[in-house]
């Protein structure tokens, strides 16, 4: 590649900086050349574009992606003669001296180096064995590898991690301190920092299993569901608008609430899958199961003048296929919509066979998003329950009133009637859902030539790609069948993809970094056996429980390590792929904001409900159709968690966008972290963060027991970081305090502004200078590397 490719996008393994270890699992000397790990990547990168699965682009009728193709009889002999490189046309061509004859051809810009040629020779001479791509083979639970340091492992994960580290002559770090652990755990599992009470409870727990008890507490928090729902919303391309030009508002949030609740209830992942893909088709489907299917109604609706509904209906169905492929299979099946996949064995016909499963729903890019159903969401149910409870209370009070209190009695009766009427009249909002066409109204599915909806080709019927696991004989050929196929025991991909995704959220990078691509072009796993072990554990032992999976991961010694970096590890494994230290990386956009609100005491912990509009700079929503306006929410809705922020596709919430969040237009399998100056401007200057700094200053003054300056600063520091301040840190704060105190004594107007805009008038009896200075310091604390990062 002639252009600088970002490392996170690099598909080839092991080419990090010089001197850095090779990341794919090493092979011992004398071991047989491994097709999957050593040969296939070379062939895939250099040969498959012309000699791969895509029959249309295939040159010289030669395919090298199957053994039959490579070794089959052809004029002039087979391309590869197993055991005999010297007789293999393939080998002769890759080593040819004539630039006209050499393969890959010059104009392809591909070139094999000596090491690659050597490997290919060794592979042919060794019999040219083809193995299936690792990810297409069903995982089996591997044996735990032996380790020298038997003391360190706490569970199976650690055996795999440590074996690899020992192999690389690296040593793991010891366990992080409790304050670090609780912060790490809290962000990873709930997206929020721990409260002071939670910290002290953990610090004071002398029992042996204090950490495990903490893990269980955190897993039981209702915020757990919110944290993982945010991840799922990225994948499901959630937004509160329709997308495209008009981008009108639509109601999708009841589905978001369903997701939060499903995570909190620890709904098994297979059920979670089936209900979202096909809940409406389940026998006696409950309202919640139908609500779940709004998942695939998150696709965009184009209502621009003159658009052909069919064109955008087709676009939505394709998006559902692509998204399903990325989320469950970890494959970019989308490539096959225009041509057979060049690398992974999915033909164009097979793509449209998958398409047929999802081509039978009643929605058709209509402006009103029909079909819709009014279904009781968790928000509705909780509101309903609360009101009903109030009615009950009133009634019991009413019953307790004596005859002399007639006036009061009448008043109570009236109130209770009114409230009851309100309860009876409550109606949940209608939300787009999946609904199957009647059997006699099914659509005929065709291969779409070059993906064009106006060019139907050969007719096809529902089916799954041949190279993946087989369709169960009795499965219904509809969405339910497809969903069950995805989570069937035979599927080699779904469990691996899911485990890898959760791993990446906790450890920073997946064992396969390309979370969205476990296909032949994806990266090879750093720890293939561990990935398989976890996949089998998740499916068989944990019965698809995500909470149990999370617990297994966070209970490991690997997870609990200190993130302190030793020189050797920094040089040899700068990105911490081998985990010789604990994970440390920048928090997600929403977490950074939620944290500022939480530590300053502003955060509303209200769950569920319609999206809210926190502070946003003026003039952001200047889209073509300006019917909708950003109306800043009042009261606690201004300080709700980030996932409740109104998501407009053409104009996403700017501070999130600047910190790598998506727009909800397409499935976002992972957020690629960046550190830009424009992102630093958010935490320095965004009014949301200014308000948080002001609130923090006020909180320090109001709640701090000791009124002395150093005590206040220490308290502020502890509120933000969750730990005690060190001397050098205190010195830095004190210097800033002194300088700023003088400054604001002289400039009272500035002091008033920084202490009160935008949060509002000063509390009584607190000098403005004090609050101004504390605000300035709080602003600094909320920008510390330690705070933007999980430790």
């Amino acid at each position, binding site marked *: 590649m002639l252009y600088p490719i970002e490392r996170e996008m690099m598909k080839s393994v092991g080419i990090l900086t010089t001197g850095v270890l090779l990341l794919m699992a090493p092979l011992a000397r004398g071991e047989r050349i491994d097709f999957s790990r050593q040969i296939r990547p070379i062939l895939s990168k250099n040969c498959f574009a012309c000699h791969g699965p895509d029959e249309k682009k295939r040159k010289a009728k030669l395919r090298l992606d199957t053994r039959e193709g490579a070794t089959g009889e052809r004029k002039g002999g087979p391309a590869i003669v197993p055991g005999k490189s010297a007789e293999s046309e393939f080998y002769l061509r890759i080593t040819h001296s004539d630039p006209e004859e050499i393969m890959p051809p010059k104009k392809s810009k591909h070139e094999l180096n000596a090491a690659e040629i050597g490997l290919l020779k060794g592979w042919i001479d060794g019999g040219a064995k083809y193995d299936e791509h690792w990810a297409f083979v069903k995982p089996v639970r591997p044996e735990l590898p032996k380790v020298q340091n038997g003391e360190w492992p706490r569970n199976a994960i650690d055996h795999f991690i440590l074996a690899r580290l020992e192999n690389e002559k690296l040593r793991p770090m010891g366990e992080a301190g409790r304050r670090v652990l609780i912060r790490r755990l809290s962000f990873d599992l709930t997206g929020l920092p721990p409260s002071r009470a939670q910290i002290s409870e953990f610090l004071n727990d002398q029992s042996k299993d204090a950490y495990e008890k903490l893990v269980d507490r955190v897993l039981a928090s209702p915020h757990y569901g919110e944290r993982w729902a945010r991840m799922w919303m990225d994948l499901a391309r959630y937004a509160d608008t329709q997308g495209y030009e008009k981008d009108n508002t639509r109601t999708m949030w009841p589905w978001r609430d369903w997701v939060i609740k499903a995570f909190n209830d620890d709904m098994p992942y297979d059920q979670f899958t089936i209900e979202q893909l096909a809940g409406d088709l389940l026998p006696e489907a409950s309202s919640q199961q139908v609500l779940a299917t709004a998942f695939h109604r998150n696709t965009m609706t184009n209502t*621009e003048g003159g658009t052909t509904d069919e064109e955008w209906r087709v676009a939505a169905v394709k998006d559902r296929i692509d998204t399903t492929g990325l989320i469950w299979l970890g494959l970019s099946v989308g*490539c096959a919509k225009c041509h057979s996949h060049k690398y992974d064995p999915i033909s164009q016909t097979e793509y449209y066979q998958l398409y047929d499963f999802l081509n039978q729903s009643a929605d058709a890019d209509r402006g009103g998003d029909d079909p819709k159903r009014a279904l009781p969401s968790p928000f509705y149910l909780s509101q309903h329950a609360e009101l009903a409870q109030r009615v009950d209370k009133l009634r019991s009070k009413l019953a307790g009133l004596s005859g002399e209190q007639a006036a009061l009695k009448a008043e109570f009766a009236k109130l209770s009637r009114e409230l009851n009427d309100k309860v009876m009249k409550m109606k949940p909002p209608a939300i787009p859902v999946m609904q199957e066409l009647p059997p006699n109204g099914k659509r005929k599915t065709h291969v779409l030539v070059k993906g064009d909806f106006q060019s139907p080709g050969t007719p096809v019927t529902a089916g799954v790609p041949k190279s993946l696991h087989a369709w169960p004989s009795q499965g219904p050929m509809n969405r339910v069948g497809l969903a069950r196929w995805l989570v069937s025991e035979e599927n080699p991909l779904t469990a691996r993809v899911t485990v890898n995704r959760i791993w990446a959220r906790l450890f920073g990078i997946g064992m396969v970094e390309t979370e969205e691509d476990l296909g032949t072009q994806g990266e090879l796993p750093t720890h293939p056996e561990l990935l398989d072990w976890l996949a089998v554990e998740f499916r068989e032992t944990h019965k698809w429980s995500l909470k149990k999976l999370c617990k297994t991961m966070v209970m490991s010694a690997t997870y609990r390590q200190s993130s302190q970096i030793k020189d050797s590890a920094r040089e040899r494994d700068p990105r911490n792929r081998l985990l010789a230290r604990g994970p440390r990386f920048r928090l997600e956009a929403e977490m950074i904001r939620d944290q500022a609100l939480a530590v300053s005491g502003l955060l509303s912990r209200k769950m569920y409900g319609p999206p809210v509009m926190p502070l946003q700079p003026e003039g952001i929503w200047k*889209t073509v159709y300006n019917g909708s306006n950003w109306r800043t929410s009042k009261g606690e809705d201004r300080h709700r968690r980030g996932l409740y922020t109104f998501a407009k596709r053409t104009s996403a919430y700017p501070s999130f966008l600047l910190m790598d969040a998506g727009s909800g237009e397409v499935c976002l399998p992972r957020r690629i972290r960046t550190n830009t100056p424009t992102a630093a401007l958010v935490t320095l200057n965004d009014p949301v963060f200014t308000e948080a700094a002001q609130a923090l200053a006020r909180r320090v003054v109001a709640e701090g027991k000791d009124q002395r300056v150093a005590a206040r600063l220490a308290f502020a520091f502890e509120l933000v970081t969750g730990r005690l301040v060190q001397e050098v840190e205190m010195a830095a704060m004190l210097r800033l305090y002194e300088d700023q105190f003088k400054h604001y004594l002289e400039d009272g107007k500035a002091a008033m502004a920084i202490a009160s805009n935008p949060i509002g008038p000063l509390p009584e009896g607190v000098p403005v200078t004090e609050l101004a200075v504390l605000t300035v310091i709080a602003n600094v*604390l909320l920008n510390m*590397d330690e705070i933007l990062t999980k430790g």
Partner: protein
Amino acid sequence: MTENERYLQALTRRHFLTRCGVGLGGAALANMMGNLAQAEEPRVHNPLAPRMGTLPAKAKNIIYLHMAGSPTQLELFDYKPELKKFDGKICPKEYLDGKRFAFIQPGKNPVMMGPLFEFKQHGKGDTWISELLPHLASQADELCVIRSMSTTQFNHSPAQLLLHTGDPRFGSPSMGSWVTYGLGSENENLPGFVVLASGGRTPSAGKSVWGSGYLSSVYQGTQCRNTGDPVLYLSNPDGLDRKTRRRQLDALRELNEAQHRAIGDPETIARIAQYELTYRMQTAAAKVMDISKEPKHVLEMYGAQPGVKSTADTKNVGDKPLAAASDPAFANNCLLARRLVESGVRFVQLYDWGWDHHGSSQPEDMKTHLPVKTRQIDRPIAALIKDLKQRGLLDETLIVWGGEFGRTPMRENRGGRYGTFVGRDHHPFAFTMWMAGGGIKGGLNFGATDDIGYYPSEDPMGVRDLQATILHQLGLDPFKLGVVRSGLNSRLIGPTEEGKVRKEILG
């Protein structure tokens, strides 16, 4: 103590700041410290460090003027006297069968409509230019007018996406992202890809037209705004002055250094540098965005009016902003564009909204409101060309002008009826764009359409050709500029080989 820490300690605060002076960002700092200081979000190289393309570059910078909504080629550049003869006659069936338009419907045949304004020939190439663009006409010798453009999309949002991201669907990086990805930025204290919008609205396809798609978000366009902070969150909070900010960052650095001593994560060093860069950007961006310091004659040349609010932001008819000839927003942006490229910003993208002249309402009336829009842009664009030329910057700055498609030779009859206002529907089959500077042949008329302006008749040029040619002029090989995703080389010019660098228009 690690080497890293020793280095850090050796730097006094002042020393640190001088060494990290202008032009030295986080990753450069990391390089200075050797490979030890790589960020955990890996940056072996600063992703925005300036670099050479793989081809000899004709242009260093680009100013892309996108008229969102799509201006009528038939009133501005593509003079069709023949079309006059058919004025008012029913459009022949063969032009409508099997075609899709936004509002012209099958069975409700519209009438043809001749050009609504007069044309004259200008410059050494006898270039036909409308009476609506007298100032631009004076620059005819700099323009390469391409009248044979076509696209495959006939709705705003997909057509804008196709043009700017190479894919009518969402999710691909925009041209500006690709260019900064390929070439980096000349000025570390400013974003490499700046977006300026006027006309009261942003483009139909939303912020995705300057999004970074599947590239890192480092490469997304930064929208500089006419109201409030020119760059989002650029100004310090009320009551927090620059000296205070400096003291804050000094304290922050001390805190971060303590963290680095404790943990040893090179990312912490990158963080310190990130904040220093931010501090410099606050000054640099505010300075470059402040056009009020420009001399009076320059302001007049552009028709720029510093600090004057855009009327389009406040005045609406129905759900559309009503353009006013006095609105200086576009002129201000043109002047800004020059200041930005002068400061080393690689890609300046202007979007001007309000060119969707369907004739279905007052703001979309071609007779009365097209002249208002052309008045807003005519003088500023001419001034931009002249100004760049005077400063010796035109040769290295490529200017591109156009919409996302063209407009029909037929008069639009929404709902099968004609009302008070006049306009044309979306026309993907033929439209006009022009380029200037940046190694493009001036005074050239490239391509032509048939007598009624329906289809290209000479040298047809597609969107892919345009993209390929633009990248080529900047020294980027359009066929190679890409990233491998799922084994496919994903590029601006799309997966197929249909795009060509149009050498005919190169100087």
